């Protein structure tokens, strides 16, 4: 492949690619990110190819396997171009009909369309589905229209035009100035202004400098960086090259966790293609600027997402953080000035260069500009990745886009910011999302995880869960984090098991102070957040657990008992037969009773009791009523039942 020697040559190449493409030619795009591959997208793809061949359409219809579209709840998704009709939850068996009906006869298949749950209306176009309608998919939107393994696809949608722009007369200072004025803040957790970070490195006297992509995404439930790197790796690469040019780095690293095999594969392909085209390498586009990129696979420690630990790991040592009193943009990788930004931050850079800082700052709140991708998981109707302008309220994200809480349950809290984030209660749902706004509410932006919790979630147990995660992931280098998380976990576990003592809350608060003030890195400094934020908004749950041994969410096993209400039991024997520990005393025409000594609280009886009877209940904080005497257990069907 011939190398591109000037910005004009790249534009020529783009023209050539576009001239060969007929926008009216039918094309089926199929999302093939990790999430949808897990729900059968690979087989759907194979079937599509086979079926087109069988029906003699291979040359007339293109298939494009794209990255993640975000609506993972309803994946795999097919979009038929050019009319853009959208089919959801495709199974391999649907393929034959899609080809013969939709592609050949231009007829829609109703059962594969999205049905608006509020109006029962069928929606044909993806952008009209409420999940997408309220989003602003600037960074993430291209995922749905390109094959991440083909640089031509990226070029066809205007890819690398920001690179063309900077090499057509922008100095590194101009680039830096644009990014600074955009007020872009790091999307990985810290929210540090990217422009200021870059400027520090640019001004550092050392000649050798580095740029690094942090793709060590590790927050439970967060997968936006994965989806970007899998679905649009060139956008990350383009941002990285621009950053390198701005600060004067000639070497870049992509630190990606090895648990992301498709992301590793796609970024490697992207780098190879960019090298072949001369977009990475010596004298890029005739500019005289040299830059190379190396992919490093992380070995799977959460703490390596912390910038200094990541750099230590890149250097080939155990991934433990180091003191940051001299920032890593001055003294980072191999003690050289190093700009480390996360995947999403880098992917924002080409947009800022193309559209300008003024365009970017139009979106968002005072302190947080642009958009942010959130991963919406937990007790939410529409699980998936959503990109919204900063400043959208939590309520809009959860209800308008997320479709609210399933199963008629009541919303309780949204946990944002990953394991060291915090829980935000219902009365703060009108909070506008932004770095400072979330921090003021006792939580944080983090990398954009949003876990929705409903009335069945015990907030003490939620805190315990996240502290357990952090305790497990603590590297162990500093005492407050290693020992503090361990002690906090022990106390929280005791509380959820009914062994909470007076003074536990105070002790947890004291440990929290030591962790946040004295820990070496952000992992330990923010580790108390799950406890502190749940204490702030749900203190009564802590007190009920400790004082009354009561779990109001009826979730903590040690604090609940199961009870069959005799006047509701219909002696149907379902729970009697299903109980795995033979704890139910009953039989035909005998009202069932639970033997509390044998009950393991596995929840089976509660689950299987037919909803029309609803006879099994959970009790917490109160004694279980005494069972009715054996001679009164004969079940007599009466007209009321």
């Amino acid at each position, binding site marked *: 492949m011939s190398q591109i020697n000037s910005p004009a040559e790249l534009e020529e190449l783009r023209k050539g690619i576009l001239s060969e493409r007929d926008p009216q030619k039918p094309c089926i795009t199929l999302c093939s990110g990790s999430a949808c591959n897990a729900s059968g997208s690979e087989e759907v793809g194979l079937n599509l190819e086979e079926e087109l061949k069988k029906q003699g359409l291979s040359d007339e219809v293109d298939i494009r396997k794209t990255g993640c579209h975000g609506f993972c709840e309803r994946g795999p998704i097919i979009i038929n171009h050019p009319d853009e009709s959208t089919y959801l939850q495709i199974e391999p068996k649907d393929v034959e009909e899609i080809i013969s009906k939709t592609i050949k006869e231009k007829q829609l298949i109703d059962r594969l369309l999205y049905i608006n749950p509020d109006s029962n209306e069928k929606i044909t176009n993806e952008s009209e589905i409420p999940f997408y309608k309220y989003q602003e998919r600037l960074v993430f939107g291209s995922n749905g229209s390109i094959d991440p393994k083909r640089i031509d696809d990226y070029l066809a949608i205007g890819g690398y035009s920001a690179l063309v722009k900077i090499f057509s007369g922008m100095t590194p200072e101009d680039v830096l100035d644009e990014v600074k004025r955009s007020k872009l803040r790091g999307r990985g957790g810290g929210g540090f202004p990217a422009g200021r970070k870059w400027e520090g490195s640019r001004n550092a006297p050392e000649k050798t400098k580095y740029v690094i992509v942090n793709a060590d995404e590790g927050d439970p439930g967060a997968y936006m960086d994965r989806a970007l790197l899998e679905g649009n790796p060139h956008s990350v690469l383009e941002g990285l090259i621009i950053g390198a040019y701005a600060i004067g780095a000639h070497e870049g690293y992509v630190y990606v966790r090895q648990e992301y095999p498709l992301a590793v594969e796609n970024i490697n392909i992207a780098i190879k293609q960019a090298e072949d085209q001369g977009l990475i390498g010596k004298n890029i586009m005739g500019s005289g600027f040299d830059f190379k990129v190396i992919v490093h696979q992380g070995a799977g420690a959460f703490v390596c997402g912390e910038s200094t630990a990541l750099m230590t790991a890149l250097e080939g040592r155990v991934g433990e953080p180091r*003191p940051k*009193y001299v920032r890593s943009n001055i003294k980072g990788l191999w003690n050289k000035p190093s700009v480390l930004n996360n995947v999403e931050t880098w992917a924002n850079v080409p947009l800022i260069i193309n559209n300008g800082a003024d365009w970017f700052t139009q979106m968002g709140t005072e302190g947080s500009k642009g958009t942010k991708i959130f991963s919406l998981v937990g007790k939410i109707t529409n699980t998936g990745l959503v990109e919204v302008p900063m400043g959208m309220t939590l309520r809009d994200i959860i209800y308008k886009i997320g479709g609210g809480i399933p199963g008629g349950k009541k919303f309780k809290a949204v946990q944002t910011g990953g394991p060291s984030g915090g829980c935000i209660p219902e009365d703060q749902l009108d909070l506008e999302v932004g770095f400072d706004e979330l921090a003021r509410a006792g939580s944080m932006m983090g990398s954009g995880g949003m876990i929705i919790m409903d009335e069945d979630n015990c907030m003490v147990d939620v805190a315990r869960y996240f502290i357990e995660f952090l305790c497990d*992931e603590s590297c*162990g*280098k500093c005492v407050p984090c*290693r020992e503090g998380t361990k*002690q906090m976990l022990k106390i929280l576990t005791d509380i959820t098991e009914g062994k909470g003592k007076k003074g536990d809350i105070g002790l947890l608060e*004291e440990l929290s102070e030591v962790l946040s003030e004295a820990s*070496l890195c952000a992992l330990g400094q923010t580790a108390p957040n799950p406890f502190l934020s749940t204490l702030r908004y749900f203190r009564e749950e802590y007190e009920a657990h400790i004082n009354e041994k009561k779990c109001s969410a009826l979730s903590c096993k040690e604090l609940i008992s199961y009870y069959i209400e005799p006047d509701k039991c219909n002696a149907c024997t379902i729970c009697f037969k299903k109980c795995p520990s033979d704890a139910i005393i009953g039989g035909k025409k005998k009202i069932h009773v639970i033997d509390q000594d044998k009950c393991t609280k596995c929840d089976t009886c509660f689950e299987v009791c037919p909803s029309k009877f609803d006879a099994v209940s959970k009790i917490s904080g109160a004694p279980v009523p005494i069972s009715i005497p054996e001679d009164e257990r004969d079940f007599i069907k009466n007209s009321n039942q």
Partner: protein
Amino acid sequence: MRDILLQIDGTELESKEGMSVLQAANSAGIDIPKLCHYDKLVPYGGCRLCIVDVESKGISKLVVSCVYPVEENLIVRTRSEKIDRIRKTILELLLAHAPNSPELQEMAQEYGADKDRFDKDSSFCIHCGLCVRYCDEVKKLNAVGFIDRGSKKEISFIPEIAAKECRNCMECFPLCPTSYLQAAFVLSESLSSTNLPSKS
């Protein structure tokens, strides 16, 4: 190297550029408690006991003095109610592992730390890393290292290297703040569990 003027606990003193606050304090005879620091080793910042309050350009914050570089006109306070409270809790967390360490006990007395505050987990090792880092940085032998992560982390001698090198050295033993018996124990255990010859 440039001379840098700073103030520690009200005393004006001169130090050299590139020194840490802890070094500057020690050179002026001001004591700051520490467990993982040793002059011959690269500062580690692990035990966090040497936490102090620094005020620079009107902003004060808590930092760890062994790794915080001196700055012109820096105002350092080595004790405060908050600092003492943090040190006390750190000591209590460590005393759960090594309640009989004389070094810990001495500091516990100074800061009023209760050795029975947290449930005992007598693993003795407090992960200061002195043995591991000494063997690496000074002896360049790496006969002892850390294995696993977080609270499951342990020091462990590498039998192949230890069998050859340790008997003639043992320089790390006196560095251990919780008594070197533990290190010796781990060492002999490693040696006995290997078929390698004890002398090479």
